[in-house]
């Protein structure tokens, strides 16, 4: 039994923008154990999404190596591995020509899983979890932003993946919806017995979900800090805001983030 789900070593990634090479990720190394929840934070444009897409096998890597479930995925991630990875995109990324239910059928079609009855059961279950059982025939564009995002999460879960990658899942939503969804999914994610990597730009979200937070630096991004969050998941409820340990971590995180912000500002000043 392999206990390490993700093993990423020395990931470097370059983009070519306007004929200029731009180093986005500069040597990222980390690993995730089974059932660990890892939060990834960093300034905007630091390559958080790029990092997550590389782990999900969507983007190729320039240098470095990647192992998922103990299998080498450096050059190309095999389809059998991709099948065990669920990806939630930043902005739901649903197909507007498919109804909610048909959107959830997509993963089964992609892997040629043809057991209609079993598939339907999984779809029903996923819709139940995200609370959208009454909207299976609706088209995505008929739903609100929060509902679309929940469909996106349901789609990532229908194949019951062992590894769930979430790219700012609640980022595009308004503050209230965001708060509500966060609490809705907190309980589910932490009890689902899955390895989860969640990219977020909210300190509260990172603290609420993760057992470990990786903070990236400005571009070209390196791992700047790793913060262990050793608050038991049972205590992470609406009441967590009054927990002294939580508040201490929160202060620590705010300091890290504002330190990054200050550095940026100083650099900007020098450039002038």
């Amino acid at each position, binding site marked *: 039994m392999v206990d390490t789900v993700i093993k990423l070593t020395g990931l470097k990634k370059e983009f070519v923008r306007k004929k200029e090479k731009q180093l986005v990720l500069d040597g990222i190394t980390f690993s995730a154990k089974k059932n660990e929840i890892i939060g990834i934070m960093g300034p905007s444009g630091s390559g958080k999404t790029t990092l997550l897409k590389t782990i*999900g*096998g969507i983007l190729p890597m320039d240098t470095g190596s990647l192992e998922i479930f103990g299998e080498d995925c450096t050059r190309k991630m095999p389809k059998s591995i991709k099948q065990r990875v669920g990806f939630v*995109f930043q902005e739901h*990324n649903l*197909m507007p*020509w498919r109804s909610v239910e048909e959107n959830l059928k997509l993963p089964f*079609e992609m892997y040629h899983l043809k057991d209609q009855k079993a598939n339907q059961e999984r779809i029903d279950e996923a819709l139940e979890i995200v609370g959208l059982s009454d909207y299976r025939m609706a088209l995505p*564009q008929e739903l609100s932003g929060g509902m679309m995002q929940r469909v996106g999460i349901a789609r990532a879960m229908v194949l019951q993946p062992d590894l769930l990658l979430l790219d700012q899942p609640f980022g595009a939503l308004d503050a209230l919806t965001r708060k509500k969804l966060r609490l809705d999914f907190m309980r589910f994610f932490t009890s689902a017995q899955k390895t989860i990597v969640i990219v977020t730009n909210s300190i509260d979200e990172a603290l609420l979900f993760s057992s470990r937070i990786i903070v990236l630096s400005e571009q070209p991004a390196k791992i700047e800090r790793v913060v262990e969050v050793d608050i038991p998941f049972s205590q992470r409820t609406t009441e967590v805001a009054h927990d002294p340990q939580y508040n201490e971590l929160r202060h620590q995180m705010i300091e890290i983030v504002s330190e990054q912000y200050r550095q940026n500002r100083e650099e900007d000043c020098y450039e002038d």
Partner: protein
Amino acid sequence: MKTKSMLHANKISKFLRNSWPPLLMLVLIIALWEGIVYFFNVPYVVIPAPHLIVAETTKYFKSELLQHWLATVKIIAIGYLSGVPFGILLASLISQSKLAIRAFSPLITVLVTLPTMVVIPIYMVWVGFDINYRAIPVFMNVASIVTLNTLSGFINVEQRLLDLAEGYGASRFQRFFKYIFPNALPEIFMGLRLGCTFSILNVIGIEFITGKIGMGFAVQYFSGLLKMPIVWGCILIVGITGRCMFLIVQLLEKKFVTWTR
């Protein structure tokens, strides 16, 4: 049964509610037209009154106009119905290779922008005067406009969709049929709508130039005889034909494209 008939009645009342503004407009225009012709005593050769157009057109419809109209519709149908699938197929094939896209794009644009009228003499040298060959330029024009639009739909696929496909390790086949093709449907329908306009324009143009049948010929023939009300009637028939074609495409579009880009 009762509910069904009530539903039917509901549909009719909804139709009336939605379409009374254009209907009212039509009635007003016709009334104004009749009035002006009557009061100013406009000669019917210059502007015939609507009632005269309808009367003359219906009188000649069965004996003369019907065969012209059928000939025109036949050519449109052959050209359009073969041009559309060919255009979509061609765009699908070209889109598979970046090199092919670069090689073919300028050529397709030229074919779209080139007025068919100027190439018709060449066609005639090649294939002769048989009226069925009129479908060839129509086919060429419809196929090129559909190819152009479909190809642009295939090329401009959003990165997020390709990312989604890549996350599942989609095969080339899956990526095209499950992501790229449905995503391009709005553009494909844009091509189909333009194809309607193009095909009518072409057929009428060709009929003007050559042959002794078709609505284009009828317009020339009856204006030569100074039977202007029939000429106006011919124009009306061509307009209605185009509108019906457009309507069919729109209905299909409404069924398949339920989103906006």
